[in-house]
C-alpha cells in the first residue's frame, strides 16, 4: 500500500478517535471536567471589541455548548482556529482588524478617553494579485501600481507562453507570443528589471512566480538576480513562492517540458536546495486551480491536489529531506468557483492534510499546516455581459474567505478577453478590500460563518467523496501510476465535457449566457484597449536577448557543458543551474537539459 492508502486509513482512524473522545468525555468524569474547564477558560479569555456602530462582539465565536461530549467533538473534530486539525483556520487570528478595546461611553454618548495601548502585530493582507504583461519593465510598472497602497508588497508574476515552455523569445515561430498573457523573461537581466525598485530581502516583500515546467531554471534566475542587486547574503532572506508543481501540469495545464521522472528529479533538486538555504521560500505551490480550470469537479480538484501533495511528501522524504524541513515549505493553491462545494472545500482539504501529515508522515505542527492561496475561478468568467463577472468574483471571494484562505487573488471582469487592463484590475483589487476591510463580515470575529448546518453537511459530503477518490487512485497503484495511466486527465476531460453539456442544455444556468440573455448586452466587449504587446517591444526583447547571448557566448558554453555532466551523472543539478543562470538564457538551459533527459511526451 502506498502512503495514500495509509492516509485514507489515518482519516478513518482519526474520525473514530474523535468518537472515542466524545464517549470518553461522557463516561470519564475527570476527563469531562477537564474539557469543560478548558472550554470555559478559552471562552473567558476571548477579547471583545466593538463594531463601528458600537456593538460588542467576541474576537472568536464558539458554539454555545456546555456538554463535555459535544465539547470534545468540537475540539477534536474541528479544532479552534490555529489548532489541529485546523478545520477552522491555519492560524489563530486571520483577517481581524486590530483590537479596538471596549470603550466605555460617557453619559452624553461620547467615548471616554482611554490610555493608549500598543496595537497588536497585524497579519499580512491576503491580497496577492497575479499580473504580467509585455516586457519586464512593463510588468515592473504594473507591480508598482498594484502595490502602491499596500503595507506589504506581495507580488504574483504571470509569464508569457514561450517562457512557460522554457523557450527563448528568439525561437522559431514564437515572435507573436512574446509578452502575450504574461511577461517575457529570457535572462537574469530581465529578472533584474522585473523586480526593480523592490526590496527583495525585506520581510515586507514576497514574490510568487507562476511557472512550473522550467521552474528550477527560473528559480535559479531569480536567485541570481537577487544576488546581483543585494549580494549573496540576501538568498536566505528571500520570501515568495514558485509554483513548480509537475503533477498538475501533466494532469491539466500541459506545461511540462522534460519527461515526468526527470521533471520530478529537477524539482526535488530545487526543493532540497531551497528548504536548506532559503527558509522563507516556498519551492512549490501544490495546485488544484488548473485542475479545476481544466474542467474538473470541485471534489476532483481537492482530491487530486491533496494526493499529489502526499506523493510529493513521499518523494521528498525518499530523497532524505526531513519532513519537518520540507513540510512547512509546502504551499497550496486552489480555485474558487460558484458551485456549493466551495463553501467547504478548502477547510476540508486543510483538515485532511493535517491528519495525513501528522499520522502518516509524522510531521510536527509546523509541517502539518495547509497554507493556501485561493484564486477566483477564471473558467466561471463569461464574455457575454461581462460586467456580471464582478458579481461572480465577489461571491467567489466570499467563499474563499469563509474557508480562511491565507492568500487570495481576484480575477478581473475583462479577463475573458484579455490580460486585465488597469481599470478592471483596480476593481478586482477593490473587491478584496471591500469584503475584508469595508464590510464587517470578516474583520470582527473568527469562525464567523463556520458550523452552520449547511456548511457541515457540505463538509461531510465533500470529505467522503475525496476519500473515495483517494481509494481509486490507490487502487491504480498510487499517484504516479495513475498519472501515467491518464486517470486524472481523463476524469478531468470527462467532467469538462459534462460541464459544457450542462451549459448547452441549460441544466447549468449561466446568467447572460443561457439564461436572461439580452442580445445587445451580450455582445458588449470592454471598451478599454486590450493588452497586446506592440511589435516594437517584441523586437526589443529579441534584440537584447541577442546581445546577451553574444556577450556571454564563451561562458555559456562552459556552463552548459558542466550542467550536462551533472545531469548525466544524476547529481543534484541546482547548484549548477545557479551558475548557468548567470550567463545562459532560459532556452539555452532547457534545451541542453532536454538533450540529456529527453523531452516530455505529450499526453492527450
Amino acid at each position, binding site marked *: 500500500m502506498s502512503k495514500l492508502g495509509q492516509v485514507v486509513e489515518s482519516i478513518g482512524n482519526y474520525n473514530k478517535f474523535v468518537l472515542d473522545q466524545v464517549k470518553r468525555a461522557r463516561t470519564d468524569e475527570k476527563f469531562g471536567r477537564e474539557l469543560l474547564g478548558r472550554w470555559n477558560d478559552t471562552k473567558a479569555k476571548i477579547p471583545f471589541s466593538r463594531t463601528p456602530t458600537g456593538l460588542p462582539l467576541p474576537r472568536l465565536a464558539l458554539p454555545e455548548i456546555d456538554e463535555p461530549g459535544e465539547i470534545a467533538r468540537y475540539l477534536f473534530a474541528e479544532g479552534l482556529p490555529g489548532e489541529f486539525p485546523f478545520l477552522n483556520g491555519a492560524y489563530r487570528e486571520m483577517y481581524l482588524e486590530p483590537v479596538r478595546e471596549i470603550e466605555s461611553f460617557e453619559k452624553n454618548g461620547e467615548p471616554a478617553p482611554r490610555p493608549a495601548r500598543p496595537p497588536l502585530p497585524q497579519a499580512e493582507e491576503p491580497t496577492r494579485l497575479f499580473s504580467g504583461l509585455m516586457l519586464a519593465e512593463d510588468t515592473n510598472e504594473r507591480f508598482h501600481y498594484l502595490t502602491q497602497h499596500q503595507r506589504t508588497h506581495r507580488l504574483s508574476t504571470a509569464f*508569457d*507562453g514561450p517562457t512557460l515552455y522554457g523557450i527563448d523569445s528568439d525561437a522559431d515561430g514564437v515572435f507573436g507570443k512574446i509578452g502575450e498573457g504574461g511577461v517575457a523573461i529570457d535572462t537574469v537581466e530581465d529578472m533584474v528589471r522585473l523586480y526593480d525598485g523592490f526590496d527583495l530581502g525585506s520581510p515586507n516583500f514576497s514574490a510568487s512566480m507562476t511557472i512550473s515546467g522550467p521552474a528550477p531554471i527560473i528559480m535559479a534566475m531569480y536567485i541570481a538576480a537577487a544576488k546581483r542587486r543585494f549580494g549573496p547574503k540576501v538568498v536566505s532572506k528571500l520570501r515568495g513562492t514558485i509554483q513548480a508543481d509537475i503533477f498538475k501540469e501533466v494532469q491539466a495545464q500541459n506545461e511540462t517540458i522534460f519527461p515526468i521522472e*526527470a521533471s520530478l528529479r529537477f524539482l526535488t533538486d530545487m526543493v532540497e536546495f531551497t528548504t536548506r538555504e532559503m527558509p522563507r521560500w516556498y519551492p512549490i505551490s501544490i495546485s488544484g486551480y488548473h485542475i479545476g480550470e481544466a474542467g474538473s469537479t470541485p471534489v476532483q480538484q481537492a482530491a487530486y491536489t491533496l494526493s499529489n501533495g502526499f506523493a510529493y511528501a513521499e518523494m521528498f522524504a525518499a530523497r532524505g529531506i526531513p519532513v519537518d524541513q520540507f513540510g512547512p515549505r509546502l504551499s497550496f493553491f486552489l480555485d474558487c468557483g460558484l458551485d456549493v462545494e466551495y463553501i467547504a472545500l478548502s477547510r476540508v482539504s486543510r483538515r485532511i492534510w493535517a491528519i495525513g501529515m501528522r499520522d502518516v508522515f509524522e510531521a510536527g505542527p509546523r509541517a502539518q499546516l495547509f497554507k493556501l492561496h485561493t484564486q477566483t475561478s477564471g473558467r466561471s468568467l463569461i*464574455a457575454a455581459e461581462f460586467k456580471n463577472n464582478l458579481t461572480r468574483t465577489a461571491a467567489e471571494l466570499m467563499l474563499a474567505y469563509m474557508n480562511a484562505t491565507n492568500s487570495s487573488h481576484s480575477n478581473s471582469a475583462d479577463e475573458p478577453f484579455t490580460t486585465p487592463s488597469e481599470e478592471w484590475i483596480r476593481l478586482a483589487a477593490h473587491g478584496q478590500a471591500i469584503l475584508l476591510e469595508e464590510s464587517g463580515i470578516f474583520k470582527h470575529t473568527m469562525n464567523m460563518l463556520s458550523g452552520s448546518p449547511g456548511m457541515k453537511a457540505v463538509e461531510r459530503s465533500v470529505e467522503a467523496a475525496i476519500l473515495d477518490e483517494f481509494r481509486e487512485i490507490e487502487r491504480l497503484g498510487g499517484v504516479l501510476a495513475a498519472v*501515467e495511466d491518464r486517470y486524472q486527465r481523463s476524469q478531468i476531460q470527462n467532467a*469538462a465535457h459534462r460541464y*459544457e453539456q450542462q451549459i448547452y442544455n441549460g441544466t447549468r444556468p449561466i446568467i447572460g449566457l443561457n439564461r436572461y440573455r439580452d442580445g445587445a448586452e451580450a455582445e458588449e466587449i470592454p471598451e478599454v484597449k486590450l493588452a497586446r504587446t506592440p511589435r516594437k517591444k517584441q523586437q526589443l526583447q529579441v534584440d537584447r536577448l541577442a546581445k546577451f547571448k553574444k556577450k556571454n557566448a564563451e561562458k555559456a558554453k562552459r556552463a552548459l557543458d558542466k550542467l550536462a555532466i551533472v545531469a548525466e551523472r544524476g547529481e543534484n543539478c541546482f547548484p549548477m543551474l545557479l551558475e548557468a543562470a548567470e550567463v545562459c538564457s532560459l532556452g539555452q538551459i532547457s534545451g541542453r537539459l532536454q538533450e540529456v533527459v529527453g523531452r516530455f*511526451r505529450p499526453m492527450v
Partner: protein
Amino acid sequence: MASSIRILTAVPICDGHDSAINTINLEFIRHGIEVIYLGYHRSVGDIVRAATQEDVRAIGISSYNGGHIEFFAEVVGHLRKRGANDIKVFGGGGGTITHEDAAAMKRKGVDNIFFAGTSLAEMTDYVRRHYGRPRVKRSRPKSPDQELAHKLTAIEDGYARGKRVTSNVQPVTLKKKARNSSKTRVIGFTGPGGAGKTTLIDELVLRFLNQNPEGRIAILSHDPSVIGEGALLGDRATMINSQNDRVFMRSMATRGQAGGLSPATHDCLTLLARSGFDYVIIETVGTGQEAMPFQKNGIVNQTVLVMNPDYGSRLQLQKIVMLDLADIVVVNKSDLQRARTAHTEIEQRLEQNRRNQQLIDTVAKRHRDPGVDQLFGLISRSEL
C-alpha cells in the same frame, strides 16, 4: 456513402489550453467527422506539415494564449506557399479573439472564427456544410509529398464511394509477389491497445533520423471509427520525433471494417511501399491475424507484435494469434512488476513455435532505452 470529412485540429505553440478542443473534437466525431488531433503546443511547421500529409479539408485551431493574428496568418501563408490552397483554416479562442481580430484574420485568409458562446452544434454544422462537399477540381500538387497525399485521399475516397476490397487477408503463398521499391522495408506493428506502439514507433523514428541524415520514413497508422460516427486519429498528438520533414505520416480510420484496418489499407500501403522511403511502418491495433494480413510474400517484410505485460493469465496468451506469426515480439513497459513473468511466459510460447522469433524487452517511454536500441538494431540489420 460519402467519404468522411477529415479535419485537423491543434492548439498553437506555447499554448496548453486544450480543454475546449477536447470537447469540440468529441462533438465532431459524434457527427461523423474524422479528426486528426495534433495536440497542444504545436508550431506552424508541424501543423502545416501534418495538414498537407493528411490532406485534410480544413485545419481548426483553438487559441487562448494570444498572438493569434500572427499565428493563424502564418498557417495560411505556409499552406499557400506549399500550394495547399484547398486546405482551409478556421478556429476560435473564447473571448480572447475579438471581432476586430477576427476581421483582420479573415482578411489574411482565415475562413471563420467562432466567438465565445458559440454552440457545439453550430461549429459542427459549419464544418459539415463548408468542408463536406466533394472537392471539385484540385490544384496540381507542388511536391512529391503532396502528390502522395492526394493519391492516398483518392484511394480512400474510392473505397468510400463503394469500391469493394478484393481481399485483405492474403494467403501465405502468393502467385505474384508485390513489388516494393528496391530498398524500401515495410514493417508492421500490431498489438493490443495501450501497449505503447505509438511511443515505440516514435522512439525508433528518432534513432532512424539520427543515424540516417538523408533517410525518409513513412508511417501509416490506424484508429478505429466509432460505429456510425467519425474517428479520433490521435497518434500524431503523442509523437514528437515523427513531426519532421523526413517523416511522412498518414492516419486512417477503420471506417466500419473490423480487424483494425481500413478498406483502403492494402492499396495505400502498396502505394507507400513504392514511393522511395527507406522504411514504411504500418501500425494497427489487434492481436489476431486479421490485424496484419500482408505478411511474407506480401508487402510487409517484418512484423512486430508489441505486448503489454498486463495481458492477464497465460491462458490469455493462447488467444493471441500474432504470437505465432510475428517476427519480433516486444514486451513493452518492462519496468512494470508483471514484466518478468510476461517475458518468461511469452518466451516459452515462442520456443514452442520454433520459428526463430525474437523477443525483446523495452521501456519505450524511457529516454535512450537500451531495449529500444536493441530493437532498432534488429530491425535495421534484418535481411529482406
